[in-house]
């Protein structure tokens, strides 16, 4: 009798990457693991797993933890100390919910005459339409998933202007959101109230808007945001500092290739300087759902739950940050694409495969950051560039943004509530996004979201409104100046000659008549 002794040698070295002299002392992580190694390992793993030998497949399937998880899941799960060996991914679903106050066709002839800037009819229509197609059915779906699977968790971020519009146009939808958010497995993020780009122009205004937002969220939902996401995931090192000072525990941003390099977005990182924990979007897996789901030209179409989960099984890391617009469900991807069914069956399959769900604040508590991410230049989640060019790449955008923030001091000093409110609504990032002329490469996305005929029209409305805003400021300033002057001049009344006396009375009359007309206008508004 011959005894057969199979012996497989399994080895791969950590190949050293192109490590440049400039990196000495700067990039420590890169020595430990690198892209090339990961790629080669992955390749070999694939080769063997496609062969028929189940033994080899199990031995070489990616990493020992995976092997263990496959063979001994019951054993490991029973043993609390070994539990962490099980290769489990936590899915961190975060949905952005926002609608801007779209401007109306505001013409040059309206300047100084009409202070109604926003298209109430259109805004109401859109809120109602999207409620019906997306918010209400998706809320119901998520509610049923939360009830059915105790492990299921989701996170939302609502802009303040969105909540305001719900109150105004669709209170029923707001109730639906309130009900959903009440569930203990739903977390809410902090952001700017007006979904603005204030961070780029005025830290003071930015902080005020974040505080306003936190207040609003507490009022509406009774929950407090602990993790921060800036408008459009715009981020740089300093943002982490500011968010930290505002008391947030972590920041969410884009897992852009150019900041991560070879590193995976599927871990918790920390920001340079502030050491603030960061959660980075896995844009591939996110965009598979948000953008590619219904794209028939995509080679993976149609995307099934099984296929999606099989991708997740192959991925390294601990946490998958799937961030997308809530309108993905039913509005960007229509119901007949099967997006709702996909989401309905995803949790079950994921749980069966041993994965779990997590919210951002839990994630940063559970996982230690694995490394530092340095972002000296602004990034965002928009377009292929993942930079801020969607809002700031032509002369119109630059000028509009610069102008709107140039009047901050005036607006705040005057203390006129409706002026402040209008000014802030005009800061919403969408206004500048609609002015984007990056048509030629990825213009399709921009076009779909543009309620105006062209970027030029968006700019014209905006600038006409801005002119009116300025006229209002000037009028209020004049009024204020006159008010402040009055008592002093009155004292001198006896000494002064009749001429200046006449002037003063004239001025007072003028200011009075102005106030009069204003009252009438505000009545009309109500």
């Amino acid at each position, binding site marked *: 009798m011959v005894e057969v002794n199979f012996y497989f040698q399994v080895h791969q070295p950590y190949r050293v990457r192109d490590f440049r002299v400039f990196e000495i002392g700067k990039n420590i992580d890169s020595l430990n693991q690198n892209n090339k190694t990961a790629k080669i390992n992955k390749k070999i793993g694939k080769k063997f797993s496609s062969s028929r030998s189940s033994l080899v497949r199990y031995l070489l399937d990616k990493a020992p933890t995976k092997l263990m998880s496959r063979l001994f899941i019951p054993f490991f799960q029973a043993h609390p100390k070994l539990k962490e060996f099980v290769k489990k991914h936590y899915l961190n679903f975060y949905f952005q919910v926002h609608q801007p106050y779209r401007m109306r066709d505001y013409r040059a002839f309206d300047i100084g005459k009409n202070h109604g800037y926003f298209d109430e009819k259109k805004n109401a229509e859109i809120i109602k339409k999207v409620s019906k197609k997306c918010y209400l059915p998706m809320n119901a779906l998520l509610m049923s998933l939360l009830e059915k699977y105790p492990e299921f968790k989701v996170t939302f971020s609502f802009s303040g202007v969105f909540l305001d519009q719900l109150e105004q146009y669709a209170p029923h939808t707001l109730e639906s959101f309130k009900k959903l958010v009440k569930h203990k497995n739903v977390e809410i993020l902090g952001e700017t109230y007006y979904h603005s780009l204030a961070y780029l122009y005025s830290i003071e205004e930015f902080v005020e808007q974040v505080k306003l937002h936190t207040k609003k969220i507490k009022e509406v939902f009774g929950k407090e945001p602990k993790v921060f996401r800036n408008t459009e995931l715009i981020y740089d090192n300093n943002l982490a500092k500011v968010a930290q000072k505002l008391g947030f525990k972590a920041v969410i941003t884009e897992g852009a290739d150019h900041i991560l390099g070879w590193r995976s977005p599927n871990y918790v990182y920390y920001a340079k300087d502030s050491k603030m924990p960061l959660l980075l979007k896995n844009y591939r897996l996110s965009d598979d759902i948000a953008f590619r789901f219904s794209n028939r030209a995509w080679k993976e179409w149609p995307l099934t739950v099984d296929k999606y989960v099989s991708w997740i099984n192959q991925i390294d890391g601990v946490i998958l940050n799937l961030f997308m617009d809530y309108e993905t469900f039913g509005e960007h991807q229509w119901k007949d694409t099967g997006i709702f069914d996909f989401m309905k069956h995803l949790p079950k399959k994921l749980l069966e495969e041993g994965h779990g769900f997590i919210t951002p604040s839990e994630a940063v508590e559970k996982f230690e950051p694995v490394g530092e991410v340095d972002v000296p230049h602004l990034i965002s989640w928009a377009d292929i560039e993942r930079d801020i060019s969607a809002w700031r790449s032509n002369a*119109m955008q630059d*000028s509009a943004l610069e102008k709107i923030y140039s009047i901050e001091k005036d607006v705040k000093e005057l203390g006129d509530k409706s002026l402040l409110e209008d000014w802030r609504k005009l800061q919403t990032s969408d206004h500048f996004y609609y002015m984007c*002329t990056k*048509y030629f490469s990825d213009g399709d996305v921009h076009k779909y979201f543009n309620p105006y005929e*062209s970027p030029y029209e968006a700019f014209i409305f905006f*600038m006409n409104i801005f002119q009116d805003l300025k006229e209002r400021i000037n009028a209020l300033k004049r009024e204020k100046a006159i008010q402040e002057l009055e008592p002093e001049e009155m004292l001198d009344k006896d000494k002064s000659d009749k001429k200046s006396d006449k002037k003063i009375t004239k001025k007072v009359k003028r200011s009075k008549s102005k106030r009069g007309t204003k009252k009438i206008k505000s009545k009309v508004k109500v």
Partner: protein
Amino acid sequence: MLGWEFPPYNVGGLGTACYGLTKALSALGLKIIFVVPKAPDEFDYDFLKVVNAGIDLEHLEQYIPINSGIVPYYESFPSTKILRNDIVKSKNFQLYGPHIFEEVNLFSDKVLNVANNFDFDLIHAHDWMTYPAAIKLKHKTGKPLILHIHATSFDRGVIGIDPRVYDIEKRGFEEADVIVAVSEFTMRTVIEKYGINPEKVKVVHNGVLLGNKDKFYDVKIFPNDYVVSFVGRITIQKGPLYFVEAAKIVSDFIPNVKFLVTGSGDMLPQMINRVAELGLSDKVVFTGFLRGKELDKIYAMSDVYVMPSVSEPFGITPLEAIANGTPVIISKQSGVSEVLRNCLKVDYWDVEKMANYIIAVLKYSELRDTLKTHAFMEITNINWDNAAKKLLGIYEEVLNGRG
């Protein structure tokens, strides 16, 4: 190829279009025999010589003038000194000259004679006046027929159409192997108003000829004023009165604006009257008909160019304006609005919005600059080479289809 005008003896965009198209086609290796009804007396048979002397028409294999009185747009006559004939002298204002149909017939006879001297593979005819000739030629030679539509009766006669012209057009469309429309706008007209099988109609958008401009003309006639311009035949089709109404609203809002009107046509007196009525006589400047460098200078000195056409099958002037570094506002009722994105589009009747756009372009320099640079980049893609390639594809299809 059968046409009715060719630069420099053209009154409208058709001649310009034929020039650009034939030039690009010949660059693709095609040989074109271009037949026009009549060349001006003073050049007559010396015509080719004149061409060689100044203007680059060498790419045309032949340029054959035939003596015939056809002048399709009678209305545009007061402006052109070049095309003089009997029709001009009869001061009877109709859309077409009184003898137009006789002339069309005459032309078709002559074309047959000319065709005897040449060998060709297919017939390509531009606009209705050449259709009877083209049909006759098709019957005689059995060659495939392509009809190119630059404008239909519905574009020219906004108020009412001429049933005789309509009949010629309809018969032509029915006889044609392929109909080429300059825009989807025109294609829809052909399908809906003439009841033509949609499969026969193809769209080939026009292009624009970009001269090698290193820099734009730097001309300033009114140093302290903004300049808004209108270029085109002053006929109902081009919407000149909407321009005047918009000018009134703009000048009430911004005092220092001048409005340039370049071109002429049957509605010129009416336009001048309206300008006077509105008290705009010192603001609206009529330059008369201009071409070439002078026209380029008009575009270049304008802060914005407006094309308020009521019905414009294509509309090449906005592209010319852009090529001269000027932003444009165009009517939505135009073929060019299908291909041009970096511009402002407005319904021709919405003069208030038109005025609003004019004011915005004048007041906001960032808007002007962004429009200018983006449109300039964009029009490099709207060229005759693309149109010619598409047309070549159609030619091949037609010839192959015939076996």
